[in-house]
């Protein structure tokens, strides 16, 4: 769901960049407060780890394989959407500059969709239902909501850009990601969260801490 260069006009791309930079700044501020100096090595390593995780093939229907995005996963485990934003921003910068996955001018938009919107919607959905459904199910739904919302944001941005009419874009992006998101993001997020809780319960911030992170 990476947007490429040229698909969004420059002036709009600049706005997305500004919004994205603002959220990166917020997430750095959050990290500084939560993890102080340890954040640099931990987030650098986690970003590298998520990069590798995104390369793991997951069998999705129709005999093709997809991969995980990971922003909601990071947000849930580290207990804040800002964790997902910071990690995805790092990953997207490397993907854009190195692989050409997602453009340069539209990198702000990509960070906004896959980092900010996916993390926020996914994480807060998870937070709302965690109490009643438990960690596993809440992670599943959180992961799924994050990816679907991220995809819808792409549809809306492309529509604003005039690249695609709004309704078909939202319908098709929505349906496609709603289907693949069940496995690629929802199910895997749930398995990973429960398994990390088993192995390193101390890492899973959300399971112990209540209270909204700044």
């Amino acid at each position: 769901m990476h947007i490429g260069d040229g698909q969004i006009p420059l002036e709009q791309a600049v706005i997305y960049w500004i919004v994205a930079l603002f959220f990166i700044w917020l997430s750095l501020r959050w990290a500084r407060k939560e993890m102080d100096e340890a954040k640099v090595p931990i987030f650098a390593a986690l970003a590298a780890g998520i990069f590798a995780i995104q390369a793991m093939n997951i069998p999705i229907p129709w005999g093709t394989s997809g991969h995980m995005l990971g922003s909601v996963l990071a947000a849930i485990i580290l207990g804040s959407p800002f964790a997902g934003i910071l990690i995805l921003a790092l990953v997207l910068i490397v993907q854009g500059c190195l692989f050409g996955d997602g453009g340069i001018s539209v990198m702000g938009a990509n960070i906004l969709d896959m980092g900010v919107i996916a993390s926020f919607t996914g994480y807060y959905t998870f937070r709302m239902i965690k109490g009643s459904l438990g960690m596993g199910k809440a992670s599943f739904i959180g992961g799924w909501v994050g990816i679907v919302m991220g995809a819808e944001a792409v549809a809306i941005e492309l529509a604003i850009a005039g690249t695609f009419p709004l309704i078909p874009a939202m319908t098709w992006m929505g349906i496609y990601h709603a289907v693949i998101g069940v496995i690629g993001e929802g199910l895997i997020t749930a398995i990973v969260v429960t398994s990390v809780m088993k192995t390193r319960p101390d890492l899973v911030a959300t399971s112990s801490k209540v209270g909204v992170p700044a």
Partner: protein
Amino acid sequence: MHGISLTDIERETYKNTPIHRLDGRIKLLFLIAIIIYIVSLPKFSTFALWKLAGLEMYLILLILIARLNLFYVALRYVMLTPFGLGIAILQPFFPQAFIKEFTIHELPLIGMPWTEEGLLFGALLFAKFTVAVTTVILFSSTSPMTEMVESARRLKLPREFALLLTMMIRYLFVFWGILNRLRRAQTSRCFDIWNKSVPRKWILEQIGYSISSLFIRSYEQGERTFQSMLSRGYDYTADIFVHKKRIQAPEIAFIVVTILVVGNIHFLG
């Protein structure tokens, strides 16, 4: 990842050509300038199509000077095409909000209507995408990632973010290795995500557990690295050390030539 791995890209960056030797800051600015130029071209103009074609020729010339493996360049381009082509190819079949009048034709055989204007818009989208991707391929294959971050740091990328990015680059390769060893060990024990003789649910669980193990390993890597950083005097003021190089004649020549070429393409093309 997409048939092209980190190591393939890295191998190209180790070549020694005039393009590779250029100062990283110049290449970074070049990347940004070209992308901005492409994106700011009008979204509906036959003229722009020719300008993009001219620019693409110039980029291909630079790729040749940089002696990049052409098979590798083509492969990278082809791997990325679906992303751009998908959106472009649908354009003739949708009305664009910013276009008032359409010239409508029908597809032979199936009779589906399409518009000339949509076709031009789609072609432009795809052309912009192509030139942008070519620029990124050229840039990423001629400057090592470390150099990119060092250059960005010299161009005032904040200290903390530069450190994050450089360390991430180091650990990209570490985790790339771990991922490959993990896969190899799984393959050795007959794991196959398309194995029909085990339940699909079980396979997905195993993938989830692998991802969980990678996640924990990266977190713990960060924890251990933090201790070793502290041992070397790390605190919140830490910065990366930038090995200073000066802008010299080749850089200036490159800038002048690029401005001349792009200027020519823009005003004459």
